[in-house]
């Protein structure tokens, strides 16, 4: 396959996926996919539509268990059969649709399903912890007591990410966090991702947007047609190399020649930026 550069992190991976297969009936969504997630590292998963990114996210979230393959958590083999398994292992997933309750305020959304308080809800404690968390993330939220429907797209994304941190997870999976956002809001979320890295979380960033990936990711894992098609350290890879891996331009000598001529880049760029 393509040139796989060794990962720069010396730590032990938090989670290792090896030989993951997932089929939906006759369709093979993932074939022999591997992925390592290290603490304090942002690993971006990129790929064209149908490359298997969402399937991989759902396996991590425990929504769709893998058909076969081994998952190890600090070296111990584990299974992710349902969302609870995933949560218990410290994997928090922020889905693309955010899953916020628009009629509830920020505090209520953050603690939804794990409210504090013995009998009655302890609003004071919850609000205090909310502010604490938002402060750690340097997040800009005007008020934690307004319904989240009143927040901007970036602020809603912030709330969704902050919520994923409530259980103090070791891994945060972000599915297309900037897809629906404007330029400034995207910058806000990218800052947030860097904050998460500083806090030592392992971060999986699924994205279509190469600019975002190059801005915050340390490592890029490329999926193509359900298979691994490259694992690059962002520092020593060019935009064109990633695009080539996504589109399969590096698959054989003929396309590689075409790649060098630049013909496929333009097409791929157009295709991706749409």
């Amino acid at each position: 396959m393509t040139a796989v550069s060794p990962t720069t992190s010396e730590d032990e991976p938090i989670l290792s996926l090896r030989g993951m297969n997932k089929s939906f009936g006759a369709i093979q969504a993932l074939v022999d996919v591997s992925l390592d997630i290290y603490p304090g590292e942002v690993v971006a998963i990129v790929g064209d539509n149908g490359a298997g990114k969402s399937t991989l996210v759902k396996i991590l979230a425990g929504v769709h268990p893998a058909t076969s393959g081994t998952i190890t958590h600090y070296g111990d083999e584990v299974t992710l059969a349902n969302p609870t398994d995933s949560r218990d292992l410290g994997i928090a997933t922020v889905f693309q649709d955010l899953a916020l309750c628009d009629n509830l305020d920020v505090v209520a959304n953050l603690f939804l399903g794990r409210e504090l308080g013995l009998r009655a809800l302890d609003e004071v404690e919850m609000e205090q912890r909310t502010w604490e968390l938002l402060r750690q993330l340097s997040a800009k939220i005007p008020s934690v007591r307004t319904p989240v429907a009143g927040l901007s797209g970036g602020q809603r994304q912030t709330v969704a990410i902050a919520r994923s941190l409530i259980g103090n997870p070791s891994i945060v999976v972000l599915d297309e966090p900037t897809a629906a956002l404007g330029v400034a809001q995207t910058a806000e979320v990218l800052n947030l991702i860097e904050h998460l890295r500083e806090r030592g979380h392992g971060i999986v960033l699924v994205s279509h947007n190469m600019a975002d990936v190059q801005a915050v990711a340390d490592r890029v894992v490329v999926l193509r047609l359900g298979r691994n098609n490259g694992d690059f350290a962002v520092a020593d890879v060019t935009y064109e190399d990633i695009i080539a891996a996504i589109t399969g331009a590096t698959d054989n000598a003929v396309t590689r020649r075409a790649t060098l001529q630049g013909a496929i880049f333009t097409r791929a760029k157009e295709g991706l930026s749409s």
Partner: protein
Amino acid sequence: MSTSTPRPPSNSTPAVDSPSSASIAESWTAFRSRVRGGDLGAIPVVVGLAIIWTVFQILNPTFLSSANLVNLAMQSAALGTIALGVVLVLLLAQIDLSVGSLSGLAAAILAVTFTQLNWPLPLAIVAALAAGALFGWFYGFLLTRFGVPSFVITLAGLLGVLGLQLWVLGRLGSINIPFDSWVVQFAQLMFLPAWLSYVLAGLATLGYVGSHLSLANRRLRAGLLPEPRTTILLRGALMIVALMFGAWYLNTDRGIGLMFLLFVLLVIAMDFALKRTRWGRSIYAVGGNVEAARRSGIRVDRVYISVFMVSAMLATLGGVLAASRLAAANQSSGGGDTNLTAIAAAVIGGASLFGGRGSAWSALLGIVVIQSISSGLTLLSLDSSVRYMVTGAVLLLAVIIDSLSRRSRALHGRF
């Protein structure tokens, strides 16, 4: 779900305000911006009630007499209890069309078991409530297991339960409940002694002010923005004046009926359950976004089933109260407009048909509006044809206000 209005990200509001103090002026500004944003709360219904009372008072000076208001309170209790259950169901964006039939069934069960089978009264009441719980569970089960819309389930329930009510009543069709039984006494003749009503008004105010002050203290200690002490004391002062005056005015006639007091206590308890417990929080969450609630680990099925059970039990309790007040159960118990009045009361009081918005107080406010219209028109000797039309118009107005404030909220990026 409303669309959020993207705000300019250059919004330079500091991330974390270190809370220092907030004046009355600030809370007034916040209140005004909330109202302008379409978060009207109970304002439309309170204003509406003031208009209705003024108009009827001008048309007939006996409308606001203490005797009439005492009656109004007593008439509100049974239907209000049913409406309280409807509020719960509406919060989930569901509907229960069978509350009227359920209340009729409860009346029938109470009358038959108590007068014909000679069960002890508490047991007869428990049996009536148990029937409600059973039907509520069944609705919830059908909804969660088969995904049948609650509209259809409860429409079938309306017919089925009505049939059951007629079957329980048997050939007689109408059964009187002895006048000297304590349920009838409770519903017709028991009023708070004057001194006790003042004591309760004082205790309620003390409880309100005390709990809010201690909350403000806790928030201050936790470094959060507390509610200003002056606001709390001001509200407490208003509250004690209003409660004392209300109690005194009603006491110039028969006073505050125990049945009405029971209804108010139910509303307060439900308000606490909705706002301060996990169960209540999960109801709002499911009403706002079912999928989000499910993904955050809320057992959505249990929320649906428990709400339908509580709602049906409140409907049957309302039926028991209505039968007690009438001292009889018959084939038309819970029939006629009971159903739609209860649902209309919940909506008029501010429970949104779209789910996730409303409070327990919606039931109280809504039923008082409806009963005021009914009582006012009766005093003007207009018959029920006019009453239905006016109530219908008010319901329409309430729904239009709900939709308008919803649009305004969407415009201002609020839910």
